[in-house]
């Protein structure tokens, strides 16, 4: 069994938080560049400003966005890996150091309903554990901003719902978000599972690489069709119109109860920050 010291997890998470806040992933950069070439007028100009923003962020180490989010960490643990120490504490410490050392905004408040007091180090993060074959630890860190998260939605459809009704739900979610979620968006959709499961699927969908095609042809076709329909809403960059309301629509799916058809739509902004690393 391979051993991994928990301090290495802290070090990796710290670096990933800082990098994600300052460096727009390559797939996002390419997608914005391609979209800018298709647009004209104000929308083209805004997309070029997105690229300029990314260049300034990386060069001058000023975060891409002031909302450096809640840190969402996916930890996929290999069956043949033994972690020496407390993985949860190691991840949390990595987030704490990343947000402090990286001059990232501390946006987490302690109690949601009553005192809402800032925890001052952006902890706790949201951590999702899963297990896989092998002896590695696969970490994915997403910095999820409030603007796009707040406009995300879940609906528990009846199994009699048509695909058109589900498409309509996704489109209405994007339309209601308008410019509040900072388009051009990444639209992550989770279908199936259960109430909390579909939300997690939608979150995972936001981590997919732009240009990647769904393994299931039917879902791949649905992603393509939905992207066209989302862009036909003409919300455009900054909500000022244009052809580019979303850069991608990704759908993740899972088996569900025979009585249910849960659907979650999680929106990602034009700084959809995610980063992966294998330890």
């Amino acid at each position, binding site marked *: 069994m391979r051993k991994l010291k928990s301090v290495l997890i802290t070090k990796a998470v710290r670096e990933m938080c800082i990098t994600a806040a300052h460096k727009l992933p390559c797939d996002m950069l390419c997608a914005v560049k391609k979209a800018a070439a298709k647009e004209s007028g104000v929308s083209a100009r805004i997309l070029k400003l997105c690229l300029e923003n990314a260049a300034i962020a990386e060069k001058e180490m000023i*975060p891409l*966005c002031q909302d450096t989010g809640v840190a969402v960490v996916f930890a996929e643990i290999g069956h043949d890996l033994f972690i020496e120490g407390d993985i949860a504490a190691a991840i949390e410490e990595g987030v704490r150091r990343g947000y402090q050392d990286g*001059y990232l905004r501390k946006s987490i408040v302690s109690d949601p309903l009553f005192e809402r007091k800032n925890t001052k180090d952006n902890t706790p993060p949201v951590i999702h554990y899963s297990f896989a074959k092998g002896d590695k630890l696969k970490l994915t860190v997403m910095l999820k901003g409030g603007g796009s998260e707040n406009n995300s939605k879940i609906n528990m459809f009846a199994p009699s719902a048509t695909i058109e009704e589900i498409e309509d739900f996704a489109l209405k979610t994007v339309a209601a978000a308008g410019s*509040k979620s*900072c388009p051009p968006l990444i639209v992550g959709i989770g279908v199936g599972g259960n109430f909390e499961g579909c939300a997690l699927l939608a979150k995972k969908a936001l981590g997919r690489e732009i240009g990647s095609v769904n393994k299931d042809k039917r879902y791949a076709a649905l992603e393509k069709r939905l992207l066209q329909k989302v862009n036909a809403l003409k919300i455009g960059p*900054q909500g000022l119109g244009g052809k580019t309301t979303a850069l991608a629509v990704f759908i993740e799916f899972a088996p569900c109860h025979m009585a249910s058809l849960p659907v979650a739509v999680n929106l990602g902004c034009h700084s959809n920050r995610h980063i992966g690393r294998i330890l």
Partner: protein
Amino acid sequence: MLKLKMPLTLKDLRPLKHGAEVLLSGTIYAMRDAAHKRMLAEKKLPLDLRGQIIYYMGPTPARPGKVSGSCGPTTSARMDKYTPQIIEKTGIISIIGKGARGAEVKAAMKGKVVYFIAYSGLGALIAKCIRKSEMVCYPYLGAEAVYKLEVENLPLIVAQGLDGKGEIK
């Protein structure tokens, strides 16, 4: 592009119509949710905001040697619940934010406040327009404290003019 410099009066703002792009210079005050809530609970305002502009924004901490951290606008709609009272209580003449406002706020702004939108999600780019940043109120709120900012050529778009006209998505 039209250049505006603070201090400004309602008379200066009257010609601004929906969709106009401007570059703003001078003093503005950044405040968001928690500062709005506290300000409305105060008997006496801790700051004189008459004739001022407020910017819905909570920055990242500035790195040593830098004037400001990342500082783009946050969602205005979250402030909708407070805005009509804030307008009355403070006497502000303009708001800078992101996204659409509710009908009640749109009506409350008509004739009193120009609503601008700043480029959302472009916090690094906007940081280049900040010449000075100072925490002036509610320091214990951290990123939600009130900041006095000196800006130079901050790019803005008029979402709603004093005439009350202008819809954004």
